[in-house]
């Protein structure tokens, strides 16, 4: 999201507005999403403090966990986000600039609150970390190998890693199976796959081939190409253990939720 609207880009560029944040959050929640992640991409590159009002509005309507990423550079920033009702905070570029922030957050809020997002891309036969990816002008190689950084953030106290495979982001060719498999072998903590989902088979593939603990997607849901209930039904028929709510989402009830918020 950027400036209070939900946006989606392709390979982290050319973001377009796809909807109102509370409306989308309530819809995904009613449809059976297990967790929502909000990336405030306006926050990190511009180096400014963001308006956190939307977190309270989202927390009111959501009855599944949600994580907020973007612009969290200090324990105070994190506390403001968590106090508004977020369950987890995710840090990315600030952790690269000051890795000790991970330890400070883990000590204050517990490791279970602290997610580290890693933007990674294959370069010359290795996986390397990128920083400030919310702004194409400032996005740059962070000078770290992805697998080394995965080791380091766990050592510092991260409770979960979201690995955004940038080669795959927004292009819908499937998750980066090889990179995620390598990352999973390095992780003692939950690993979330991100980037590349284009079909329901891609989700089955990432769970079956890599052992990741969760899969994250945006475009395919924002565009309505994949519905969450049909995806979860498909995954459960493939023998993948996933929460399936027997009751179909009721369109009228989530619209009511929005109106009353």
């Amino acid at each position, binding site marked *: 999201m950027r400036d209070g609207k939900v946006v989606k880009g392709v390979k982290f560029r050319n973001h377009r507005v796809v909807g109102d944040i509370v409306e989308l959050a309530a819809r995904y*929640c009613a449809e059976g999403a297990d967790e929502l992640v909000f990336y405030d991409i306006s926050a990190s590159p511009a180096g400014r403090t963001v308006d956190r009002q939307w977190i309270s509005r989202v927390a009111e309507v959501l009855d599944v*966990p949600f994580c907020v990423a973007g612009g969290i550079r200090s324990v105070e920033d994190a506390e403001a986000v968590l106090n508004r009702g977020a*369950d987890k905070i995710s840090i990315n570029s600030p952790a690269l600039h000051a890795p000790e922030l991970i330890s400070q957050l883990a000590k204050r809020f517990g490791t279970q609150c602290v997610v580290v997002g890693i933007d990674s891309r294959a370069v010359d036969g290795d996986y390397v970390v990128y920083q400030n990816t919310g702004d194409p002008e400032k996005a740059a190689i962070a000078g770290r190998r992805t697998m080394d950084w995965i080791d380091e953030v766990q050592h510092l106290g991260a409770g979960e890693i979201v690995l955004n495979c940038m080669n795959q982001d927004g292009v819908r060719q499937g998750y980066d199976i090889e990179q995620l498999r390598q990352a999973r072998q390095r992780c003692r903590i*939950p690993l979330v796959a991100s980037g590349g989902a284009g079909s329901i088979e891609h989700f089955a593939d990432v769970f079956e081939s890599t052992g990741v603990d969760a899969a994250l997607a945006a475009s395919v849901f924002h565009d309505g190409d994949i519905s969450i209930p049909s995806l979860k039904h498909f995954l459960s028929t493939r023998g993948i253990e996933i929460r399936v709510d027997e009751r179909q989402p009721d369109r009228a009830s989530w619209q009511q939720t929005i109106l009353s918020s």
Partner: protein
Amino acid sequence: MKPRVAIVDSGGANIASLQHAFGRIGVAAELSADPESIRAATHVVLPGVGAAADAMQRLAERNLSDAVRTLKQPVLGICLGMQLLADASDEDSATCLGVLPGRSTALPASPESPVPHMGWSRIAINRPDALLAGIDDGCYFYFLHSFALAPSAHSLATACHGVEFSAVLQHRNFRAVQFHPERSSRAGARLLSNFVGL
């Protein structure tokens, strides 16, 4: 009688989501660090995010330890709140409130079950209780924790993440859940409704 729910303000973060969850089921829940006000509530919730020793220290500083321990109305501990109601925790060797028998120990981490345990897991119901009315055996709830209490005679339900542990405990007027009902979709809302109906 209309329920008046007090959420014990132990100074931790993330109490807003619990208040919102009660709001969604039409129940006003007041955040309070005042022992008198907590004693006057019809139902009391002890939440908790963070580490056991810190949370116990904050309860003590606010003169809330004895107030919670001596409550007679229905009490619900949530996540760390469950561990605070138990005898003790291996997390920083904390001595806890001692109203629920048992000691919290660290979940063993393995590649198949990484710790923290964060995600949706099924619960297995051991014995019926009004708190679990309308909740099916095998229902999913959202967990977010690294420590847990072993199954015991007081376990209403258990869950498994590497090892089996207590998902729901009950002893006298004290009940506790290791998962987060406020983040467990419709099943969680049902549990909170059941609690205020006790």
